[in-house]
């Protein structure tokens, strides 16, 4: 099977995309008989399409590529639709059967548009895929992450964007996958695009989101906080203990906490040593954001709330009262 990896070097996340894609090639892709694809070397060959907007990034980006063979394409930043313009000819003409893109919205857009245009099949947010003789079998979250769905992709190219969780602790490309790079082509496709539909793109600061991703001690407020005041009391208790403060989607959507405090699907995926969840039921969307925590404590009066079974320790009581009592004991 010939595959292509797409690396979007027009944004600052290129290194984590590359590490996640390399991890997926090692552990997420199998040959359908259960063997990791990297072990079944002979049957797989691939190249990486590295998109860049600035010539100065080229060298660094090539080094990130998880395959030896690299094709460089200069393009307009943040335009997955234009990246597909550059991919369509090589994918159709080069016999590429499987295209892998990074997790996140841009990767999903490239995979989806490419599948539409090349009349292939798309799987977004793939947890794993297995290459069969006729079909590609893949798994991804469905029903708002309550279940995992198994899918079969028929038409080729199979366009797959990987799940964002592949960025977790992703390692650098190993030598077996990146043994020095060979640049097969370098094309400038920026001139060809006369479209300028999106202008004045400006990246804004998101200070708290970065803090939460690196947090070692996290307190998360759920809808059980009951009000903005309740959420603020939990935030104050967190501060007293030297913990970072995050919030579930219902809390943020009620403006009880700022948007950059959001933990969960489409918010932050944290990996703290200790995570105390106050008054959240622990719906899958939130759980995705805390499941990497080494130790989870649930403070919730409802013994049937999923968070209780999904915690290491639980206190079945009013979360606000317990977290404030805890803040008097724990010192930073």
């Amino acid at each position, binding site marked *: 099977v010939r595959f292509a990896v797409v690396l979007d070097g027009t944004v*600052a996340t290129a290194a984590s995309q590359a590490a996640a894609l390399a991890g997926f090639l090692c552990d997420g892709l199998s040959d359908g008989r259960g063997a990791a694809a990297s072990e079944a070397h002979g049957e797989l060959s691939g190249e990486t399409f590295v998109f860049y907007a600035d010539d100065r990034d080229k060298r660094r980006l090539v080094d990130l590529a998880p395959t030896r063979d690299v094709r460089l394409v200069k393009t307009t930043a943040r335009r997955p639709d234009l990246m597909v313009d550059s991919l369509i000819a090589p994918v159709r003409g080069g016999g590429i059967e499987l295209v892998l893109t990074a997790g996140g*919205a841009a990767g999903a857009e490239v995979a989806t548009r490419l599948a539409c245009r090349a009349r292939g099949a798309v799987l977004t947010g793939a947890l794993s895929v297995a290459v069969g003789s006729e079909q590609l079998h893949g798994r991804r979250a469905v029903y708002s992450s309550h279940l995992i769905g198994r899918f079969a992709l028929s038409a080729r190219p199979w366009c797959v964007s990987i799940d964002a969780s592949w960025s977790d602790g992703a390692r650098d490309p190993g030598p077996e996958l990146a043994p020095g790079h060979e640049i097969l082509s370098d094309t400038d496709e920026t001139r060809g695009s006369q479209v300028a539909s999106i*202008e004045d793109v400006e990246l804004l600061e998101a200070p708290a989101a970065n803090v939460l991703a690196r947090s070692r001690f996290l307190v998360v407020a759920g809808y059980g906080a009951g009000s903005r005041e309740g959420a603020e009391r939990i935030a104050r208790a967190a501060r007293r203990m030297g913990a970072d403060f995050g919030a579930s989607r219902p809390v943020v959507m009620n403006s009880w906490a700022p948007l950059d405090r959001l933990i969960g699907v489409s918010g932050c995926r944290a990996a703290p040593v200790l995570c105390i969840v106050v008054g959240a039921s622990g719906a899958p969307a939130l759980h995705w954001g805390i499941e990497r925590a080494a130790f989870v404590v649930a403070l919730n009066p409802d013994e049937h709330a999923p968070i209780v079974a999904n*915690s290491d*320790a639980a206190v079945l009581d009013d979360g606000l009262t317990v977290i404030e009592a805890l803040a008097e004991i724990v010192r930073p």
Partner: protein
Amino acid sequence: VSATRQGADLARASGLRVLVCFKVTPDFEALRDADWRAAATRGAVETRYVRRVLNCFDESALELALRLAEALAQRGVAAELDALSIGGREVEPYLKTLLALGYERATRVPPAPEPGSADAGLAVAGTGAGADETDVAQAELDFTPGVVAAIVAAYAERVAHSDLIVLGWRSGPGDSGTVPFRVAETLDWPCLTQVTEVAPLGDRRLQVACTADDGPLRLTLRDPCVLAVGNAVVSRLRVPTLKDRLARRERPVEVLAAADLGVDIAALRRRETCRLTGLETIDRSRRGVVIEGPSPRAKARTLFSSCLRDILETL
């Protein structure tokens, strides 16, 4: 045709035409762990008796569009709002509400021919699609985002002549998150995802805020675009006053068959290239040790001494 228009300013002399699409879904929070385990074994989720809710991202989209129309009106620019949902009769109360709130048109496309509708033809006498068949058709559409996108794109192009399409970035049960991209691809438009705000910029352009994979962005839009709404702070659809409801009660919800839009649902479903073949449960359980004590304070003390003290020392 507006759909392929490029390089022109967004709002034409006639105003900005905004199509907002929404989905009414089962409230998954109402299902228990045991229900999900049973669903995985059976290969299907039983949601007929679960209450319905607006997909949360679509709800943001509906309210964002109302606010955009108000902001444009303040600048003397007209905006025309269209609402579209693919669903059975259960979506009509939502469409009625949107008409009362000032949406110009509210349209429902049934997932299957309905008894009493023109396209059900002679099958009206009890042999047309009943509630159960509509449920089955709906469930089948959940995992065929290509069909949903074809209906949205055809409606935007043929009926609404939209300049802007606003919809939630994803919705359960399918969760593919691909509908906005497919619509944009069909119309040859760009797509912005995780949109959180949209506001007029001057008379002819829009300023959009969205959350990219590498952080929040702000940008300017001049051409038709698909906006896939993410975690917008504007998350609740306003409630119409009784006066609004009375003033607009005569406005009908339009029901349009997919075939009228040139979309052959059955043929598209047969051509689907990504099929759901099974379901698996996810085991998220941990030890779940319950800390006992006579009072919240006592429980906090036990929690600290039995678990937290050792962990906190390692930080």
